[in-house]
């Protein structure tokens, strides 16, 4: 008999005791430790380097903590680093990014939530086809659509100028980029909202209709308050996605309106003069701060956002 009673003389009762140092646990936590070191070590190097002066860095002890802590590189990265002719650091890129981010996130979520709501609850003839076409957009590589998008923005700007009589340029402006982000966020966000609203009991929708609420009444009074978690997920998805975007930023804006990521690249990859590693590290950390804050603030919902974004490929 291999019963616990015979081996240890203890009668099995209550919660089964688990061994802490079982081979399974050692494997599990060992793997987790190695994986976390893999990601945390570079972060550690970045932080300590950003707090060192250049002479200390030249000594080459990458892992050693700073002897003399200095915040000079952070100040320089934020306010003084040069990209091209502008020498006001990353701050310009930060504000550009905010100006791009806020309207893009608001606009894309507003449109996509109404899209998802209409496609799941107010089905019309051809709504399924419409949805399929929209989702198809999520599977086309961005790169394919860049050049057509450039032409579209240019022509749309021309058209708007003609109509309004003033000179409007979409290509190269922040608003052009906002439109691009909104359009490219549409497939995945619509899918997200449609699936969420499809899970709302149909009888709730029917009850609201009997109660005399219309399309917008049901959307604002019933569905919107219910859908807050999915709105947060969508926001996380969009904020991280748009903030981290480099490709669209570099293509659809000009040096004056470059988002933070593009500016960061220009600072780090500048070939003139001495490589200021501490400034580069500080600049990179500054740029990554926004998604990091979002991550720590939203916790569980962030994972849901990432999982939903996994379809994006």
């Amino acid at each position, binding site marked *: 008999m291999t019963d616990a009673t015979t081996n240890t003389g203890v009668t099995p009762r209550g919660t089964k005791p688990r061994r802490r140092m079982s081979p399974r646990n050692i494997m599990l936590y060992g793997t987790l430790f190695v994986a976390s070191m893999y990601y945390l070590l570079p972060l550690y190097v970045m932080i300590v380097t950003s707090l060192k002066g250049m002479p200390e860095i030249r000594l080459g002890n990458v892992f050693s903590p700073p002897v003399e802590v200095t915040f000079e590189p952070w100040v320089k990265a934020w306010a003084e680093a040069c990209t091209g002719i502008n020498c006001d650091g990353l701050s310009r890129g930060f504000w550009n990014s905010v100006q791009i981010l806020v309207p893009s996130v608001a606009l894309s979520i507003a449109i996509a939530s109404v899209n998802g709501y209409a496609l799941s609850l107010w089905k019309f003839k051809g709504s399924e086809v419409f949805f399929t076409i929209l989702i198809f957009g999520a599977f086309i590589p961005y790169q394919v659509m860049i050049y057509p998008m450039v032409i579209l923005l240019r022509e749309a700007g021309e058209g708007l100028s003609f109509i309004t009589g003033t000179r409007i340029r979409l290509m190269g402006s922040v608003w052009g980029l906002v439109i691009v982000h909104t359009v490219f966020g549409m497939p995945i966000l619509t899918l997200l909202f449609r699936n969420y609203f499809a899970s709302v*009991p149909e*009888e*709730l929708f*029917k*009850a*609201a*209709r*009997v*109660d*005399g*609420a219309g399309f917008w*009444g049901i959307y604002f*009074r*019933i569905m919107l*308050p*219910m859908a807050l978690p999915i709105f947060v997920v969508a926001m996380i998805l969009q904020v991280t996605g748009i903030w981290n975007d480099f490709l669209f930023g570099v293509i659809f804006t000009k040096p004056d309106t470059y988002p933070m990521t593009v500016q960061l690249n220009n600072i780090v990859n500048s070939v003139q003069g001495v490589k200021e590693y501490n400034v580069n590290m500080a600049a990179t950390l500054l740029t990554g701060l926004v998604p990091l804050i979002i991550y720590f603030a939203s916790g569980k919902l962030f994972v849901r956002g990432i999982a939903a974004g996994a379809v994006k490929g």
Partner: protein
Amino acid sequence: MTNVTVKDLTLEFGAIRVLDKLNLQIEEGEFLVLLGASGCGKSTLLNCIAGLLDITDGEIHIGGRNVTWEEPSERGIGMVFQSYALYPQMTVEGNLSFGLKNAKVPKPEIAERVARAAEVLQIEPLLKRKPAALSGGQRQRVAIGRALVRDVDVFLFDEPLSNLDAKLRADLRVELKLLHQRLQNTMIYVTHDQVEAMTLADRIAIMRGGLVQQIASPAEVYNRPSNKYVAGFIGSPTINFFEGSITDGKTPEFLTADIKMGLSGYETSQGALSPRPAWLGIRPEAVITGTDVDAQPFTAEITVELFEAMGADTLVYTTLAGAPFRFRMSGQARVTAGDTLRIGFDPAQGSLFDKSTEERL
């Protein structure tokens, strides 16, 4: 005038015809129950009356007004759903007043109507709570209240008690009946539960495959089912069927597996009984045991195969004339499997159905 009339209602989902030229007339103040197995189109019919589904053809009149093209909110109906469908983010009060706010009813009147509905349904202490903080029975009361505050003449119920446990269902069923007696509104009630149908209805409409099989009072449906399907659907335990034929003779008799059952006194639906293959249905409740057996026109000896004692009554399973046969005895009856019993019933009180058309004879 708040009667409801459904004229030639047809509904198609693509190529599937769910309702086929359905006609229904519901009188003012009537409690009509739409009864049927799942998928028979009863909920669909209710949704069409409510205006929640676009119909393919036909007309719907409520209170003498053609509402076929009108929005659900304009039809003068209130609806209660199986899943309660309360707005989760609103308090009970918010739930009750939502429809009135949409209809732009003045605030004092909203407060008055909400208070009145809450009083009728005894949910006053719950007004400030959210639906999540309510029990199933309380939720369904609020859902009924939401229909009540709208001051409509027609109430539509879509299996309102199906999500409740058995005891609560029985309680709320009684309350619904009281509510109907008090309000005297026209009510259309969808259910698959025949007990609900029998107890609540003024008239029952039994549906099958998008067609109304019979529409009559509960007693009529039970005693004189219009076809074999209705006979088998209504009644628990199920009616006993004998397959056989009506013989040609002075007094008509039913012949099944060499056993003859006299049919003298059978009330026919259309003219005299003519010889033909037929089904005879005998309700388990119509069977008599004990000392009165010999007074019955038909008697037989049976062996008890299985019995279910349920306290109030005992159900006995046996075989008669080669067919499975169930009957009901008093709950105090002492029987065990293998016992031999004498039973009797009056075949003329049963129901005869034509073998091919399955219509009542």
